[in-house]
């Protein structure tokens, strides 16, 4: 269940233009690569929040669309290198679904670049940092999602 008042105390430091990018990461490779990026102290923008999946094969089109509908500025999907999926071909399914979502977005007039697939192995901490940086730059260039309501509206709604 969603938590209706989860946002009642937004962290103060979060500016109005803070981007919200979700990253669906598979457990074996991308999540591990993100861990390694940390171990190596690679610095990257703080706009990305990781949601862990057992495999990117679990990536659900409706989840991605739901995230965008509710104001995510971008969604990145990060899985194993092609051919290296720990569940044999989950990442290829994810790739297909990402393509599908991008097509849908184009149809409704939203930039397809808001959703993007990355592949990396667990030893590629650097690749993770680069992917996040690239995604941040890409979404920053697009600007906040038009589906996102201004903070004032939200406040008004809550009052």
């Amino acid at each position, binding site marked *: *269940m*969603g*938590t*209706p*008042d*989860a*946002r009642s*105390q937004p*962290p103060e*430091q979060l500016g109005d233009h*803070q981007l*919200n990018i*979700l990253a669906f990461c598979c457990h*074996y490779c991308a*999540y*591990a690569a*993100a*861990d*390694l*990026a*940390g*171990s*190596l*102290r*690679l*610095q*990257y923008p*703080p706009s990305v*929040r990781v*949601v862990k*999946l*057992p*495999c990117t*094969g*679990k*990536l*659900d*089109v409706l*989840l991605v669309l*739901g*995230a965008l509908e*509710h*104001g995510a500025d971008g969604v990145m999907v990060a899985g194993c*290198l092609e051919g*290296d999926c720990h*569940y*044999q*071909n989950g990442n290829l*399914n994810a790739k297909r679904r990402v393509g599908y979502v991008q097509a849908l977005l184009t149809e409704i007039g939203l930039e397809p670049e808001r959703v993007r697939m990355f592949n990396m*192995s*667990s*030893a*590629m*901490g*650097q*690749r993770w*940092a680069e992917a996040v940086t690239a995604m941040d730059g890409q979404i920053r260039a697009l600007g906040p999602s038009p589906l996102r*309501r201004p*903070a004032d509206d*939200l406040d008004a709604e809550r009052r």
Partner: protein
Amino acid sequence: MDPISGTPVNEQAIGAVMVVGGGIAGMQASLDLADQGFKVYLVESKSAIGGHMAQLDKTFPTNDCAMCVISPKLVETGRHLNIEILTNADVLAVDGQAGNFSVRLRRRPRYIDPLKCVGCGDCEKVCPILLPDEFNEGMAPRRAVYRLYPQAIPAAYAIEKKGIAPCRDACPAGQRAQGYIALVREGRYADALRVIKEDNPFPGICGRICNHRCELACNRGLADEPLNIHALKRFVADWAMSQDREPLAAVPQTRPQRVAVIGAGPCGLTAAKDLVTLGYGVTVFEALPVAGGMLRVGVPEYRLPSAIVDREVQDILDLGVDLRLSTTVHDLDDLFVQGFEAVLIAVGAHEGKKLPIPGADLPEVLVNTQFLRDVRLAELGQAAAASREQVEGKQVLVLGGGNVAIDCARTAVRLGARSVALSCLESRAQMPAHPSEIEEAEAEGVQLYPARSFRRIRDEGGHVSGVECVDVRSMEFDADGQLKLETEPDTEHVIACDAVIFSIGQRVGLAFIPDDAGVGITRQQTIAVNPNTFAATRPGVFAAGDATTGTAFVIEAVAAGHKVSATIHRYLAGQPLELRFAPDLPVVKMAAADVQTRVHGGEIRLAPRVPMPMIPAGQRLGGFAEVECGYSEAQAQAEAARCLVCGVCAECLSCVYACGAKAINHDEVERTETIPVGAVILAPGYEPYQAELSEEFGFGRYPNVVTALQFERLLSASGPTAGHVRRPSDGARPHRIAFLQCVGSRDQTHDYCSAVCCMYAAKEAVMAKEHEPDTEVHIFMMDMRAFSKGYEDYYRRAQEKYGVRYHRSRISGLREEPGTHRLLVRWQAGAEAADGGRPTLVEEPFDLVVLSVGMEMSPAVRRLGRELGIELDPYGFCATVRFDPLQTSRPGIFAVGPFREPKDIPETVVDASGAAAQAAVLLASVRGSLARERAYPPEREVAGEPPRVGVFVCHCGSNIGGFLDVPAVTDYARDLPHVAHAEHMLYTCSQDSIVRITERVKELGLNRVVVASCTPRTHEPLFQDSIRAAGLNPYLFEMANIRNQCSWVHSRDWAAATAKAQELVRMAAARAAALEPLQTMPVNIERSALVIGGGPAGMTAALALAGQGFPVHLVEREAQLGGNLRNMFYTADDAADPQAFLQETVDRVRRDPLIHAHLDAELVDTAGFVGNFTSRLSDGTEIRHGVTLVATGGQEYRGDEYLYGADPRILTQQQFEAWLAGQPADRPWPESVVMIQCVGPAERYCGRICCAMAFKNALRLKALHPAAQVTILYRDIRVYGFGERLYTEARRQGVRLVRYDFDRKPSVQIANPDLRGRADAAVADADHQPAGLLVRAWDSVLGRELELRPDLLVLSTPLVPSAGARELGSKLKVPADADGFFLEAHVKLRPVDFASEGLFLAGAAHYPKLLEETIVQAQAAASRAATILARPALMAGGAVAVVEPSRCTGCLTCVRICPYGVPRIMTNITGVGNIAGAAHIEAAICQGCGICASECPARAIHVLHYRDDQMMATMGALLESGGVTWERPTPVASPPNSLATIN
């Protein structure tokens, strides 16, 4: 006793196994055994497991990331309840016998307790010691406190300590010079000061006047000059002086006793400091009006400014020492009456002496100590200025040759003496004064008259007018310390002077000790003490320093002060005064030759010491200004950088202060330990060939020559260059790379092939091209040994897809191009060209040369073999038993991996599992006797309770807390919905925190827990365990990764990192509230096996399983057992009889009551899943079994290539072997034989064993009929490992080898077609036919066609899968590759498992292989199968997919997409609209990937723990609407225990 029978070898069998070596083999063997119910001790000599595989970037032939595949195994090994990892450990001896061994281990200290260390790395950040990182093959630095690599298991840090640096060893006070020098290099002067003061309260003083024996001992002196250690110490002290002095806080007196110290010199003050720090009350009595003793009144200002003495003394007094100046102690008894319980006499030796010669009492005759003291006190106005008047304008002569004499002379110079001379008994060379002091004095105009004996001081009217001397010929002290003096006759002369200063020694002033005080005095007029304890003859009285030894150096006084304070402490605590013996670390003394080697290897760059700046001699005379100016910061750092870091860790203790977990103990010592085990598996791994030994390639001299392992690190994303290939000389991108093969393999010193280099070079070449496609890569080789599954294809892709260029040329040496560091490689080009291009010599430059180094056994492994009494070959490889390839010469000790023979990762993993099976057979009767299981309280029911989330936020030392506001995150968490409790902890994963979390859950009735710390990949199980201990279901746990995903990656933005951490916690808490308990349920296991195939693989596997007590059904299509082994008649070395082995094996199978052989039978069908299969055989039997093992073998290919079948003289190798074995004596031998390699399917895949078989048969023929001429037409000779020796032997025996290419294959003609089809004519008639066979072959080396007319043509055709294998595959639903060989789950890590659970494979059904390889693989498959059969129960469920039947339309989408073929449409389940037939997912075999759930068009499938509502809760907590809701699916029982529906 027969281990296969399953009976234990002796009654006291021990259910534990020791695995030696923590590489991939050791981990695999450990996991297999631990999963089968044995206790495993995994012994690793390094500080972490992982071995060489952890260093690799990718693995061939799949290009899988090595870390990805090894990391889950690391974690699993690390947290397995029944695997105890013993790091920094070496096996010393194994006593006992199979089943009951006792292993003696050496445990080298880590200095960090792995149970307390949380791996935060705070220690590493402060460690000043840099050394080459061996994990990165020396291409990056690491610290002395380190973790081998970021993913290392155990995750705990370790400290590398080689021993005591010689500088520290030489110092009486044990100053950690190497430690503070390293800190100076890092610019951390306050820390450096702290390190100096750990051992010496007088850095400024010792930095100036110490005689610095450390420098004499410094190993750097062997390279150029020793470090200027005293100057560095002085630099630190000067830095401290330049800072404002902050008064130190007094140490509260915590102990009741008070100690009196007599004398405020360096010894007394050092002891006072130590005692006051220990909590004693300390009073120091000083007769003089100033503290500091000789330092203050004996050493002149120009050498030691008073300000420094005063400051360093004040630092001691601040601690709470009560100092009474100008207070002379008259009576010791008084002190005890006053209540002091111990007295330390440290009065020094302040009384100067005169020689008893005439004139010594004249008024102008002075004494050193008095003179110097007067000068110093005069500065304070505390004494008459007489000293100045006594020398001003005078001709001064100092008598004495020590440092004090020099001080007197140089002081006299400064006081305005007209001239100053110095005369002494000793020759110039013998003078006890420091040479530099003498030089300084001379530079200031002091005239030296050494080697004089003084007769009298001339008295002229009551005044001094000169000293009468005589020259000394020799002087020495005898054994009793008596001076023996010989003077030159007739050399009497006078040195003119009008003032004399005696400086011939000092003695102790003992007037205050009355005769009846009970304190003994020595003949030398010093206080008598026990030299070990410093106790004087009266209890409670101690003495130290010059008062007991006579004049010595300040550092000795400091050392004595420390020692005596320790004894006084023991005395007051009522402990024995003598210290217990504590083993010391060795002193790291380097040999000059080693240092020179390091200089030549470029490791040490020569640089003389940075000179100490001084004021010119001319400017010194005017006053007492300091002569040496001290280093500047840059000079100090430059000098410090010269340190060779002899001891590695220098015990600077920075880590100790940084460690919040208090895990560091520098006093740990090496110990030995004895562990009882039933079996030992040796997996010590290999050592790469030391390439510097092949001097022709310049490794170590030419910077751009690297080893393959170094190149692997350059390719690795976590390597020293972050995955960018760079040449070491200048960091530029290499455009041309050359690989040189067979470096340390197949050469004069290695008669074997290392088996992996061809493939790893191909892989590294491919990866280099993938990184930078325009890189040119050339590989120089003799043969391409792509002999295993998928290797040939990989080799082709390397050439065709990536354009890697291969040259058949062995490079003999390299040259470095002057100025560019490029390397010139010269080779014979054109020879390999099929078009017969003319060979030409080519020389081209390369930016980087990679040496494909082979495998060797390290000296440590050879030692291990010797100590264990197992047989090794001359190269150190382990010799094993024929047809029992893992068994060493000592029963119960098994050898695996490259230790047996060079091999690649899959075969190493196979070995490891095979050895696990061997050990399990040996110990089957005690399985489970030592294995532990975790006990938990019953689970609490939380359904119906509102979520009560507890949030625990981790500081991770400074790793999180140093970069974001942990308390703010905690406060924020506390106010989140459903959160009932939030707190922060220094380390959430430390033992006390884990317990606290458990307690909190119980106390506060929490029903969900969030830990905000690091990564769930390593830490989730730990926390799940802690909530399970509180009775919570482990799935009610969630982590927020605020370290790896936040503090570490946003470390420059406190606000953003804090905000993001708050969001991550909010997401985790929201998800936690939505979590539900999940159950895993035990599924019963049918404890028997079905083995399909009765060849060597099937029989071996059956015996290995039956030996462990598991019933086996062995199914064989044919009427008899044996398979391909029936076609093998001799071995290459002719040392064993394969047919005898076959007979013995068949007999064992027949005899074994647990093996049920079904001959003439086939599998009809099979159903069920892991643990619960039901199969029907063609003989009508129905079998229930828990596992299935496929060992259907292969058969020799018999196609019509090269006219096979058209002539009886054309045979296959198997036929030829049978003929050679059975050839009756009366039949003639063929005079010439031609063999053609790579026939038929072998043009597609390498037949692996054909080369060896060809050599075996050729050599057999040569042995039986030496005159026979054998010609082998080959493409590549692919005998790997020790098979190379066959190749060598064949050449030695004159077998002709002719290489051909596939685009110019040999051709065969039959000249006499009449004989076609007359198979019965056979070879016997061959010699009656006029040269019937004609073979034409293009010799690419000679560049011309050969015509051969052999009596026999033998075709090397490969093994192909057995007939029926494909059909069997579809019955079992297991995949096969394009050539029909069954496909394993993972080439590297699950080489004998099928992807489907519970199915295994072995033998030629997997790929052609040699008999011994087949045996090992069958043992491995048996081991893997046993990990299932030996489990108490299979656990099914947890985070798996479940179907909601009421939504299922039975559309088959899930059935089609599941990579494991798990979902099935069951007619007995009702789907949507009450229509029969819905999908069912068996929990026991579902892998939980979720591919089906996301594809299901009806959204009827949910992955538990990742349900839609749980996912949306996470996302919703982040996204702005906050209230995203999601339709909650109808709850389904999770997971359904659905066995009933199937069986």
